């Protein structure tokens, strides 16, 4: 336990050595392909046999979906073989090492919050804009908004399969028993924050059966919370955006979490935990299981979570549904998703593009979509009612509120994830997160906490990717 990390660097070098050894003798197949004078100019139809290498992470179900997509692709292009490498753990470390060893795949699944942008800044990725410009089948308008990641305007580094948005999931029986109207699913009827808190109070129950609006309510012994809200930026960003705030200013020049709109949203979330006691604090949240179990066991009545929660909910045997999140000023959902990126070093960009398309195609990942984990990337799967029916009707993962609360919202009210446009996001959050810990615990107000680190955070602000 303590001896194995003699020095992290020893390990690094060890891995590096291994990678070089592996690349030197390990993949004659790929080498012989690339030595042939082919590729970059060629049509995808050029009939020589090639191998594309691809790395992904993910659960066994996700990998199965990729394999299914790859099988379809290989049937369509019999001369192309896809070597899928599933890296289950420490994906970024492994990929970093591959980059250091000059042994990168043709296509890699990437995550906007980690090493995708650092790699792109060093020019390691193909600009997919050129493909999007000339492709007959998919282009910027045929994809769901906010799933294209750009280093700067016009330089697309990745396209996401399986977009995700956020919603307000709830246990229908709790509402029925309490005689309370459940959360609306239509955007036009969305709760205001105060309405939301009122309902949450009525549904927060202590061990003696008193609710949070009872003066004798005991916040130390809560049996059922009104709502669970994670303190992950993915969740609270929804409310910052909804309140008109942002992580950095519009011109990208200044840190904006200490500005009134963002501070108000953060404070409201903190108040839910520390003033109204309707939501578990980060410490109490350690006892709250995953959304599906928490709702089923009535530990919480409502949960703000990503739509991927429907996969787990579909397998839990209780009446769940989904409504739109409460609105501060504007209805908004943050859209998060991974991305496929193409390494510039690929010898077969055209073929790699075809593979990428094949994997983004919702038909390929239909299992992932109908099971609830993903949503389709193609816009016509939302707008065309036949297509929409394919993945939203008569499925356990798609309750009655789903079309209004999720499908409609992601299409019209989506906001890109901050990791997609805030430069240096990780370093900024390294400074913000410790300060937010104090806000969530109620030790400081959001204004105090954000002001206290604003100067330090400002030093890390480097601009936005969505403006020139």
């Amino acid at each position, binding site marked *: *336990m*303590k*001896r194995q990390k003699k020095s992290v660097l020893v390990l690094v070098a060890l891995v590096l050595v291994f990678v070089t050894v592996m690349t030197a003798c390990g993949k004659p197949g790929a080498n012989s392909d690339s030595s042939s004078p082919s590729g970059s100019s060629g049509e995808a139809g050029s009939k020589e046999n090639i191998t594309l290498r691809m790395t992904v992470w993910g659960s066994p179900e996700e990998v199965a979906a990729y394999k299914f997509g790859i099988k379809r692709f290989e049937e369509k292009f019999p001369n192309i073989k896809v070597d899928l490498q599933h890296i289950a753990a420490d994906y970024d470390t492994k990929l970093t090492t591959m980059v250091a060893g000059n042994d990168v795949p043709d296509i890699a699944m990437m995550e906007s919050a*980690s090493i995708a942008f*650092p790699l792109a800044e*060093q020019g390691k990725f193909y600009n997919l804009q050129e493909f999007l410009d000339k492709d007959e089948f998919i282009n910027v308008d045929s994809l769901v908004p906010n799933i294209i990641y750009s280093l700067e305007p016009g330089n697309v580094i990745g396209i996401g399969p399986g977009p995700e948005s956020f919603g307000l999931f709830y246990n229908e029986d709790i509402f029925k028993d309490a005689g309370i109207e459940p959360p609306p699913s239509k955007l036009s009827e969305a709760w205001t924050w105060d309405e939301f808190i009122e309902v949450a109070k009525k549904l927060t129950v202590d061990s003696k059966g008193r609710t949070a609006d009872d003066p004798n309510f005991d916040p130390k012994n809560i049996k059922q919370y009104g709502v669970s809200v994670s303190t992950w930026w993915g969740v609270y960003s929804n409310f910052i955006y909804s309140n008109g705030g942002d992580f950095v200013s519009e011109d990208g020049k200044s840190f904006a979490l200490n500005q009134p709109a963002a501070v108000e949203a953060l404070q409201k979330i903190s108040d839910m935990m520390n003033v109204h006691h309707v939501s578990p604090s*980060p410490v109490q949240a350690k006892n709250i299981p995953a959304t599906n179990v928490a709702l089923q066991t009535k530990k919480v009545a409502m949960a703000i979570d990503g739509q991927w929660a429907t996969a787990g909910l579909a397998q839990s045997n209780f009446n769940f549904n989904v409504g739109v999140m409460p609105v501060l000023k504007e209805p908004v959902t943050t859209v998060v998703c991974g991305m496929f990126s193409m390494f510039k070093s690929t010898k077969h960009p055209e073929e790699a593009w075809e593979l990428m398309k094949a994997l983004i195609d919702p038909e390929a990942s239909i299992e992932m979509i109908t099971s609830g984990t993903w949503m389709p990337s193609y816009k016509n799967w939302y707008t065309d009612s036949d297509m929409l029916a394919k993945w939203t009707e008569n499925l356990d993962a798609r309750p009655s509120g789903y079309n209004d609360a999720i499908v409609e919202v992601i299409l019209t009210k989506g906001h890109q994830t901050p990791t997609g446009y805030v430069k240096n996001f*990780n370093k900024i959050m390294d400074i913000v997160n410790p300060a937010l*810990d104090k806000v969530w615990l109620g030790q400081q107000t959001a204004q105090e906490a954000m002001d206290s680190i604003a100067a330090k955070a400002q030093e890390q602000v480097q601009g936005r990717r969505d403006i020139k």
Partner: protein
Amino acid sequence: MRKGLWYGLLFTAPAILGFVIFTLGPMIASLVLSLTDFNVFKDQTSFVGFSNYARLFSGEDELFYQSLGVTFYFVILRVPAVIIISFAIALLLNMNVKGRSIFRTIIYLPSIVPAIASAMIWMWLMNPDLGLLNSMLSWLHLPTSNWLYAEGSVIPSVVLTTLWGIGSTVIIFLAGLSGIPQSYYEAIEVDGGGWYSKLRQITIPMVTPTLFFNTIMTIIGSFQVFNEAYILTQGGPNNRSLFYVFYLWRTGFRDTEMGYASALAWILFIIIMVFTYIIFRTSKSWVYYEGGERP
């Protein structure tokens, strides 16, 4: 004689080669890298002299000082705890009681549990609302704690989790204890001394070489604490468990600043060297070797 030398080299070759290729080589490489701005993703790497080190000590990198402080606190808490507790356990296990080997096995058992598994168990035990520790405390009407999830208690809690795995330290103490000749104790008995005299006059002086070794190894191991931050706390809350090696790893692998991370690694190496040197220097005055002075 000559033949003996060759055999010696032959049989130690795996260890020597392993050390040179997998330890010494990478160390030299990292020393060189620490003088560059090496970033895994950048194609260009240039020599920057000592600017990585300058950046560390300029006060610009607050997390460096934070992680250093956190790690020292951890070492100061953990080293005495490990040494005292494992010595006490070794003394108990050295007694001639029934089922001694079973107790020895039980004490060593946690050391072979994978780090992740034991970390998960500790997370459950230390859960503020449902965990066994708080349940026991409130049953005894004692104040409960937020353990890993509060700024003040996170480091002591992490120390507590590591105490679980002191089996190997205990084993080394046991080896030291069993090397003490029985006749010394008999001599004390003849002189009419009790258990305290035995402990004070025989056991402790005789076991000082083992104590010396264990102290150094525990200090080194404690400075290199990583798993606990990686699995249990992610450096939180409010960076209060941002251990040095965890910060180093984050700099090198998440932020891909390998040059800077190498400089961090060398600073840690120097710190550990200094501590080891100090203990070696003081050892003359407190470590007793039966054969007289250490050669």
